């Protein structure tokens, strides 16, 4: 179940992981993208923690909406609209629900709608689809997250900049999938959500 408190803790944890791994994310983005995923995400999560820090006693919808707006206005590239839409859709769903499955389903539907990607396109959707299913089954583990992220290595990209490379995109982890992996790791580490 999501609450304003554990969601703030989740996002703060996520921000820490992104900041610590920004260089790694940009390195992943170098062979198959434009080497800026880490910088862009770091700029975004810094804005998220700043914006959340300014809220006093917010409700869940406000936490999610504030996160969405910070990401939308600070990240840029493809990741900004994708992560931003995910949190915006969670905020909308949080008006009537707070259970983990409903909100994560809403986030995933938002990502799919905004980016037009489906499973097998080598995008963050390839991580979100299996991991949201694991969350619902009550069986999400760090090993599964790692496996889902690693599995993007073998896929040929069909969306985004990596798709220009065609089969040369095989052998590289999708950077957006790795940053999504950190989001799910933070979900496991935050008490009370799963």
């Amino acid at each position: 179940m999501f609450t304003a408190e554990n969601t703030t803790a989740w996002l703060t944890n996520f921000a820490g992981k992104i900041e610590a791994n920004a260089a790694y994310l940009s390195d992943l983005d170098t062979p198959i993208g434009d080497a800026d995923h880490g910088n862009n995400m770091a700029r975004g999560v810094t804005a998220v923690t700043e914006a959340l820090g300014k809220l006093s006693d917010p409700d869940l919808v406000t936490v999610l909406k504030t996160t969405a707006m910070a990401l939308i206005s600070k990240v840029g590239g493809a990741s900004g609209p994708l992560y931003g839409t995910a949190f915006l859709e969670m905020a909308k769903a949080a008006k009537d629900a707070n259970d983990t499955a409903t909100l994560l389903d809403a986030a995933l539907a938002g990502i799919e709608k905004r980016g037009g990607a489906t499973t097998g396109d080598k995008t963050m959707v390839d991580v979100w689809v299996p991991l949201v299913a694991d969350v619902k089954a009550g069986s999400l583990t760090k090993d599964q997250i790692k496996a889902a992220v690693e599995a993007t290595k073998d896929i040929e990209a069909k969306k985004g900049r990596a798709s220009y490379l065609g089969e040369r995109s095989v052998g590289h982890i999708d950077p957006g999938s790795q940053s999504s992996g950190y989001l799910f790791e933070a979900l496991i580490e935050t008490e009370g959500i799963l």
Partner: protein
Amino acid sequence: MKKIINDPHDVVPEMVDGLVRSYPSILEQVPDTLAMVRADKDSMKGKVGIVSGGGSGHEPTHAGFVGKGMLSGAVAGQVFTSPTPDQIYAAIKAVDQGKGVFLVVKNYSGDVMNFDMAKDMAEMDDIEVRRIVVDDDIAVKDSLYTQGRRGVAGTIFMHKVLGAAAQEGASLDDLEKLANAVLPNIKTIAVALSAATVPEAGKPGFELAEDEIEFGVGIHSEPGYRREKLRPSKELVEELLGKLDDEMHLDPNKQYAMLVNGMGATPLMEQYIFAHDTLDQLKAKNITPAFTKVGNYMTSIDMAGISLTLFELADPAWLKALNYPVETVAW
């Protein structure tokens, strides 16, 4: 990395500030954004606004084409990163005159998503918005199963034709039709001698040996279709013009515009030599372009290389539009 900058994080805001303050009679910055609009507000009255934008690092694109007769506004993203929806929306709002706003977007997943979100935001405020997604780079295969072709240097021809039409009072519907008619007639292909270095990354996007070139490279160091040893200018033209010919089926009975575009670190001297070879080889096909342009228009920071764009002028009005007078920093 050897660059005349301050903090790499400040590259874009400092560049925008320097540009706007150097050309105050042409450009104005929308407060608290990296969006720039025409200083000459009278020139926009009663007209549809045209807004373009994208990542920075392609100067003079995009803001260099803002001014009477061309763009109404341009939005600068971070280096090689699409601007965000709130910034694009700020530009839309600043140029809207109640006649709607037309967006020129280059075909990259990030740009398309951010501009679409801005379009949604504007429509919530009752500003009618349409858009064209430019995809002139023939180096990339066009397929349902990829992102499709990228938008590159040919985009400036789209800016020019739409800008002239909007200045002459074209409606949003007219502009959408015009943009869709123009789009399939603009084709571009590039060759790179070296990669661009993004200031925050500090190292080149890819490595080419001293004697190596790569055909088909994009404007953000996206890899091309073939790497080989450097050859004389006329052989590079043969390769690139050959690709354009395969795609466009060049015809001496048709009219064309030509753009030889420097990618940032290639001297004009070399661009003129490349133009000389291109014009010679076109002449051998009995083609003399009706409009020509040579220079740095859609750069890729400090990448060395050239792109060649041909624009088939299927409608004589398009040639008039290319020659239409403008007051911009860079056209």
